[in-house]
């Protein structure tokens, strides 16, 4: 008799999927553990790590934010190659506010988040109607263009950049602020993408004409998604400015555009949690490989290739599937 591998939802998953009538600690754990592990992990880690690795954790959180922002855009059908635009605009706004007018960080960061979002959205508004590669091209070009504008016109300190930002009160505030915001973004936007509002956004990616047929103005929804994503990126940039106490042309570097994409690809697109997981793996890996000197990028590249070939769906969806389903061999019968 021939056999076939069958995939079935775990009993707990089947019971707890629709109704939250939980009967035991085991089932409560089953549901809450995947949520609590990252929360508790991120809250405890800064206490255990030294100063250097705390900075690494900080950049993990910043890249996770950028990756979440990329993933939200991608789920709405806009493949962006310019996360650096959001990052850089946020960084320069808070930098200018703090440098020229002495606005304290706790006011300038929220201002940069909101106005960064608005400015980036306005900049990309004309290309919102473009789809696919055309949108990507424009998002890729704008940050590269802004760098040259700053270099040529010498505004905001030109090539030197602006220095002497007010630092945040302590490194604990820095790390917990960014981790807190990252966790809020992760769980909040995950919930948002599961709501009816998120359904419309994902529908735009799937088949925009059908969404128009449902009587929805997709450009208005795309604008909103763009604002959300660029605000997240602008926050990351603004925070990093106050951490480094410096803002200059490197904030528009290609790293901030490409790295979030790599994180999402490794972690798994369309889940936001995958984006975070990808950043958690890639940033520390890139730090750990520093010992190899010039070969660092090579090893890093090999790792990326191996991962994308071995688990093309992404780590998070893979783990999620293993967690929710089990497989068994059954006989093929007629």
């Amino acid at each position, binding site marked *: 008799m*021939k056999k076939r591998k069958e*995939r079935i939802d775990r009993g707990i998953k089947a019971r707890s999927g629709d109704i939250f009538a939980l009967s035991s600690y085991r089932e409560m754990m089953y549901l809450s553990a995947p949520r609590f592990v990252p929360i508790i992990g991120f809250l405890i880690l800064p206490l255990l790590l030294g100063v250097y690795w705390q900075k690494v954790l900080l950049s993990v959180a910043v890249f996770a934010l950028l990756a979440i922002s990329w993933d939200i855009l991608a789920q709405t059908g806009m493949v962006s190659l310019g996360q650096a635009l959001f990052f850089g605009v946020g960084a320069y706004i808070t930098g200018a506010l703090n440098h020229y007018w002495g606005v304290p960080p706790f006011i300038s960061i929220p201002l940069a988040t909101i106005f960064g979002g608005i400015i980036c959205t306005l900049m990309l508004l004309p290309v919102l109607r473009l789809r696919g590669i055309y949108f990507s091209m424009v998002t890729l070009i704008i940050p590269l263009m802004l760098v040259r504008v700053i270099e040529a016109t010498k505004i905001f300190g030109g090539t030197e950049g602006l220095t002497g930002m007010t630092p945040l009160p302590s490194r604990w505030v820095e790390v917990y602020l960014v981790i807190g915001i990252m966790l809020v973004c992760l769980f909040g936007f995950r919930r948002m993408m599961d709501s009816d509002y998120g359904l419309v956004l994902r529908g735009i990616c799937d088949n925009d004409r059908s969404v128009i047929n449902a009587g929805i103005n997709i450009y208005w929804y795309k604008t909103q998604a763009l604002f959300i994503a660029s605000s997240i990126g602008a926050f990351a940039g603004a925070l990093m400015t106050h951490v480094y106490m410096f803002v200059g042309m490197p904030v528009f570097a290609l790293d901030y555009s490409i790295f979030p994409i790599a994180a999402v690809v490794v972690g798994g697109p369309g889940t936001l949690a995958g984006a975070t997981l990808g950043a958690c793996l890639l940033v520390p890996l890139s730090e750990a490989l520093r010992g190899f000197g010039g070969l660092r990028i090579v090893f890093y590249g090999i790792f990326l290739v191996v991962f994308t070939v071995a688990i093309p769906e992404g780590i998070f969806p893979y783990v999620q599937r293993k967690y929710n389903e089990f497989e068994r061999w059954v006989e093929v019968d*007629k």
Partner: protein
Amino acid sequence: MLEVKDLMVFFENALALNGLSLTVNKGEIVGIIGSNSAGKTTLMNTLSGLIIDMRIKEELRGGERISVYGKVLYKNKDITLTKPDERVKMGIVLSRERHPIFPESSVVENMKIAGYLRTKKEIQETMQYVFELFPGLTKYKKKRAGFLSGGEQQMLAIGMALIVRPEVLLLDEPLLGLSPMMQKSVVDAIRDLNKSIGITVILSEQFARPVLPMIDKGYVVENGMLTLSGTGQELMDNPEIKAAYFGV
């Protein structure tokens, strides 16, 4: 010519085809009649080998696991695991559902792409034949295929399958979305193909009325299982078929 033995196809845990067996002899027109989600397209994909490609892609994406059991024999050779491009070289060509064509290319270019395996002369000859078969296409030779109407696209799709000079032509719902007039011309064309060049045709259809008169043999599929089979006349006289697939 083509034989299917105990074919079972699973999409994850859902059974799409269940123990399906059928035989197709050379020169026959065989109809697969079934309602929505009966498994017609799955059967066509299995015969043309596209399901192998689908399986690999789904596996990489971590999506549904597609498993195929049973055998497909072509000229007494087991081709169950043969890749779709190999099957085209062996002479099995599928014209897929919903007339997929290259919308950016012109009608003639479409046929040239489809006939990549054949020589220039062969393509010219077959193209001539296709334009005779579907006179409606002649005036759109240089027009972009994406702008053709649904019926013309369907004709083009069949033409693109013919350019490969198949021995077995698989037509998945060739009448889908066509007006009764268009349906008639496609049916006439299929009959003409079968008579004049002797191509074996397997076609699947939901609406049996235009199809039944021309087929030599018909199989009725329901929920992936074979429920009835017989010659076209036998099926036409069957009261159950009349009720279910004739719309009377």
